[in-house]
């Protein structure tokens, strides 16, 4: 099944991982791939960890990406990158957003946010670090952070040829289309 590619997106509820995965999956479908996308939501809406998994190729069976299987891991939040690193293929790539969202035990002062996460990951695997929040803010809307990261992912995995503008047009409200297309392009150029 080597021809099936595995993309794992991890983040925190409210960061827009699901919309990014949806746009990604529809783009892959449009160019003729078999695609499966799996997500866990429910309680995770309330500030918990969110993962979406996108698998594509000629024919995809299981919707779930196993340990050591992801060809690319996109972490929308820094600590989540470390939490899910064991799912990345040792020869895979990781895109890490340099953006920290402290979880409840950190907020209450019971635990500390782990230090040196990005350095630890860089020492192990092909790593791209992005300050997507800053990039999105400079583009005029911090909420497009997810699309900036999607752009970086598209570049990292070599899917630039897909007509992403069309897919974005279908998935976001009209007044946000231009902003999101700009975010995607900036994300692609940041690699």
């Amino acid at each position, binding site marked *: 099944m080597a021809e099936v590619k595995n993309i794992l997106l991890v983040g925190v509820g409210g960061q827009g991982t699901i919309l990014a995965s949806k746009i990604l999956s529809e783009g892959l479908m449009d160019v003729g791939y078999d695609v499966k996308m799996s997500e866990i939501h429910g309680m995770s809406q309330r500030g918990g960890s969110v993962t979406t998994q996108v698998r594509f190729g000629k024919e995809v069976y*299981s919707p779930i990406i196993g340990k050591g299987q992801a060809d690319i891991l996109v972490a929308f939040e820094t600590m989540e990158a470390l939490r899910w690193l064991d799912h990345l293929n040792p020869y895979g790539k990781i895109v890490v957003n340099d953006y920290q969202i402290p979880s409840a035990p950190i907020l209450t002062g019971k635990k500390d946010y782990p230090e040196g996460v990005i350095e630890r990951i860089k020492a192990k695997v092909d790593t791209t670090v992005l300050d997507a929040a800053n990039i999105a803010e400079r583009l005029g809307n911090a909420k497009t952070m997810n699309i900036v990261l999607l752009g970086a992912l598209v570049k990292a995995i070599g899917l630039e040829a897909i007509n992403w503008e069309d897919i974005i047009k279908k998935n976001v409200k009209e007044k946000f289309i231009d902003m999101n297309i700009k975010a995607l392009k900036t994300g692609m150029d940041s690699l």
Partner: protein
Amino acid sequence: MKKLLTGNEAVARGAFEAGITFAAAYPGTPSTEILENIAPYKKEITAEWAPNEKVALESAIGASIAGARALAAMKQVGVNVAADPLFSFAYTGVNGGIVLVSADEPGIHSSQNEQDNRMYAKFAKVPMLEPSNSQEAKDMVKIAVETSEKYDTLVLLRMTTRICHSKSLVELKEREEVGKKDYIKNPQKYATTPAYARGMRVNIERRLKTLVDASNESELNYFEWHDKKIGIISSGVAYQHAKEVFGDRASYLKLGFTFPLPMKKIQKFAAQVETLYVIEEVEPYIEEQIKAAGIACIGKEKIPNIGELNADIIAKVLLGEERPVIECDASDVVSRPPTLCAGCPHRGFFYELSKKKNVMVTGDIGCYGLGVADPLNTVDTIICMGASISAGHGAQKAFNRHNTNTRVVSVIGDSTFFHTGINSLLDVSYNRSNTVSVILDNRITGMTGHQENPGSGYTLQGMPTKDIDIPNLCKAMGIENVKVVNPLKLNEVKTTLNWALELDEPSVIVTRWPCVLKKHSEIDIEEFGDYKGLCSVDVDQCIGCKKCIKTGCPALQFDKKSKKVKIDKIQCIGCEVCVQVCPVNAINKVGE
């Protein structure tokens, strides 16, 4: 045309294509999106949120008996609530075709248990179909409805989280308009009096025999011949995991019609393969029946019956294969549990309740279950929908009889109160209890993502409707002590809790404030106004006592170095709970 659909979206499309005209459900993860995606077919289908799953199934049963094609959908534990009509309706049979969708949750992502509802098909003796992707989910709705009409029985469509919430490609078709069958009065068929039921009981066994033939002949149960050293029998998402691991290295008997099992096909398959594996998630439902038929197979002695299955587990236990992983120290990664949102109206209430001593708090199913977690640590028990009030009543009676002066406070949401809390409150009233029942009315069904309910003023398909008055409903049920409070005003909450705990009679406190994530309707804005301004910490005033941190608001962070609290401007909505908690007035509202 092909579309990328989740299993739930595919079931909704299947309902449309199959000519279904009535659908009902109670929201519950992972089933909620089925009815949400049926709702837009307003012209073709009447789609409704029922107050609970029993009512949803019963209304679908009524539509079927009247001659319409019908569907009811619910999460796995919802079928427990609907079990009563399910078992009787299995006796009477149908008029219009009817499908019951059960969305199970291996792995317990957002539920209270991991029950395997395939057992219900065998228990109630109704046929069952199990899709393994979205295309099958859509197609099987139509097959289920046709099977229902042909064999005069409800059909169970059993899904799991990874089918419900995974997207895969689906070929869409046109709707088949079938109209409504005639309704002919026939109590011998539809009235389960003992005399008639005994006849129905005999019919069920006769029906089961014809269903065995149907399962053996069904195209949903098919062989995939490759290498015959290993043979795999599997269904649902487990089949996809098995294919992922074995590919063409094994032969498969893929099962889609899983009750009754196609034992002839199973025997034929078993006879031709050297080693037979049964790969299924959670219980050994298929395996036990195969072994009972005297066929040797390997199943749960190797494959775990706890938790979600995946390809990694199968590869490890059956082939001893494991992929290399990146070794990296992640021991300091901190857990990320779900929390009540910043501005959640439940926070202020729980904060005040957490200060009460000698109180047992019986909780219920909903966001407010998070009241069990640190730092609020308020809720003692969570059993099932509605149990807060009735389990609370039983606990209070036990405390009272044994002269223990512990008081019970039962905590339930508005939608859960409508679901089964009403019956429980009748118990409190009727049996002379003295519990404090708190109805956390956030004007919507929160946890499952904002579904309308009998108290919200709108139907699933957007029609304005009766808005059930909770305080007056409680009074009508004999509760004389009823008060409505604003849960964001801590003094009001505290005084009212003290008032209720002083009483030696039952009381109801309704905390009325909309869910912070809810899009406010015009009526909401009129009653509650809009949020204005944010809360801000004056760092010179802050003494680092962490009192505000004890509210568990995710917008507040204690900075260990400066020993001060800071407030995240993006998350804060200015609910002012922290302002009221601060003992030195270091938190203020700004930007109003």
